[in-house]
């Protein structure tokens, strides 16, 4: 009887300790998101169905998304995510697009009417221009996300393979 009481007491004590600990070690935010975000290619292309790389990272950290939703990251990206998150490596989900070489957007300046729609769409502010004036893409900053293509009313934006780094 006494033993049982003691045991109950012990359990209560343990519970109390844990409660204290959980208060002491409460985690604000999730630093894991940063780790995931660092792996993602930062094209901000939204092909993963999240509005950008960070939202996707958040979804991954919360276990809401699969690791194969990022086509620009390619197979190597999936592998890196799998390693970080301790998940199995799975092939890219083609629903989100296929992995391809990095591209650049180029505006055909003769056709551009200066509507600024692409400027608003660009997630990394890589398009310069003002209303009614010709726009141009800063090649160094363009991530090749293709988000500027649909808003363009005159289809003057073309994607070309990026020259990439010279070996």
């Amino acid at each position, binding site marked *: 009887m006494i033993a049982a009481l003691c045991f109950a007491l012990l359990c209560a004590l343990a519970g109390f300790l844990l409660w204290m600990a959980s208060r002491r070690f409460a985690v604000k935010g999730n630093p894991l998101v940063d780790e995931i975000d660092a792996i993602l290619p*930062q*094209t*901000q292309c939204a092909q993963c169905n999240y509005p950008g790389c*960070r939202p996707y990272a958040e979804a991954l950290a919360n276990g809401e998304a699969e690791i194969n939703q990022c086509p620009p990251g390619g197979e190597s990206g999936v592998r890196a995510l799998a390693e970080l998150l301790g998940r199995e490596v799975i092939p890219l989900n083609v629903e989100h697009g296929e992995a391809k070489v990095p591209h650049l957007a180029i505006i055909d300046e003769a056709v551009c009417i200066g509507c600024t729609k692409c400027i608003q769409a660009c997630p990394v*502010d890589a398009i310069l221009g003002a209303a009614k004036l010709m726009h141009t893409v800063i090649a160094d*900053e363009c991530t090749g996300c293709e988000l500027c293509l649909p808003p363009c009313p005159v289809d003057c934006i073309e994607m070309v393979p990026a*020259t990439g*780094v*010279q*070996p």
Partner: protein
Amino acid sequence: MKETSVFSGGVRLEPNKVATQLPTPQLPPQPLYAVPLNTRGGQFAEPRVQVGDAVLGGQLIAGARSKVGAHSPVSGLVKSVQTENNKACIVIEADGLQQKIPARPPVHPASVSIDDLREAGLTGMGGAGFPTADKLQAAGLNKPKMLLINAVECEPLISCDAQLIAEDAKTILFGADWLRQFSGAYHCQIVLEDHSVDSHKILTTALSDSDFDAISISTVPTRYPAGSERQLVHAITGTALLPGERPLDKGVLVQNIGTVHALGHWAQDGTPLTKRLVTVAGNACPTPQTLWCPIGTPVAALVEYVGATEKNVDLFQGGPVMGQPLSDATAAVSKHMQCLRIEIEAKKPEAIACIRCGDCAEACPEHLLPQQLHWQLQGDNLPGAQAERLPDCILCGCCDLVCPSLIPLSKQFAAGKSALRLRQHTELRAAKAKTRFDARELRLEEKERERQERMKKRKAGTAKTDKQKAVAEAMARARAKRAEKAGTSKGDKDE
């Protein structure tokens, strides 16, 4: 002869040089020349001529000011301009007249700028092909004390430097002293391998006939890769360069002797770099020789000239150790092609597994552990390879030479290095994109917040008292009316 200490590692190779012959053979004129526009280091010279333009020999056809210039080797017409990534070139159709741009009087080092040298089209002619002007620009910031003229052709077969010394030691010495003055170095050493006795003799004689007091000649032992910049500096100064350290950090500027010769020429009469010596050799080459070739000469012309008639040969650019296969026979002579090897396809013995014997580590002049790099790269472990100092690999190929299992190590390391660079490049871009995305998000958020605040204020304003409310409503109505009017006239501009 001055004795020097040796660098660590390396391999003893039979020099096996192609004999020099005077006068230097000249390649007969060709109908077409394809002048390459890419230099090593990812630079691309913008074309300055259009199809159909007539050009003179030595005329600038691409680049200049910020990019290394390219010049037409002959007079003729521009036949085509190709700007595609890998094969960017300008094709000149020779008119056979051999007209040249007029010569100019010699220039003094003090009156020349870095951009002038860039326009002269000078690049490292020892195989690396790094733009000379860029190196000198860096040297300008580092104030080198010593100028090393690299005439150490440590790879077997290649004999451009020996041929050059035999033919034109005077211009070499002129160029060396000119460059010494330009770079501000106190002293200039021309370094040879100790087996090249003839070159040493010629240079000594030429030097004693001249009045260049600041130039001396020294030798290093014949040991591959003594001609590599880092190893050369180690051998001459007696201390090894630390990983990541450049010769300039030690106050040493290293230039290839071919580059110095070309520079001397340019300083004397304004002739830009339009031709170079190329050693043509290999087991399918009946008459190995070193000959003058205009930059842009099709490689096929060289093969024909030396009388190599064998079919099914492999062409390599560079020496037997570091040489790279030429992907197609339409390739042209570039500024950094020292050697063209014509080899009968040899059946390569198959590589077997690495037994980690460590022979490669003994041979590595950079104190790397190729067996560990091999293992890391085999497992696609780029960070691991980086931790084993893959970026410090100079791709000299010593490990290939000694590997008892015949593993093509340096090939793997070259691929690993470029994969690592690509990865770093991607990471850098991602970081940049991220900051820009974050900044944009912040800006949009701020805008949204401001808008909300305005709305709130407006709402709060309207909710203050009944009286004020009534007034506000009246004002709002008035504003709406005005807006309606304006809307019809102005269109949908305002949002």
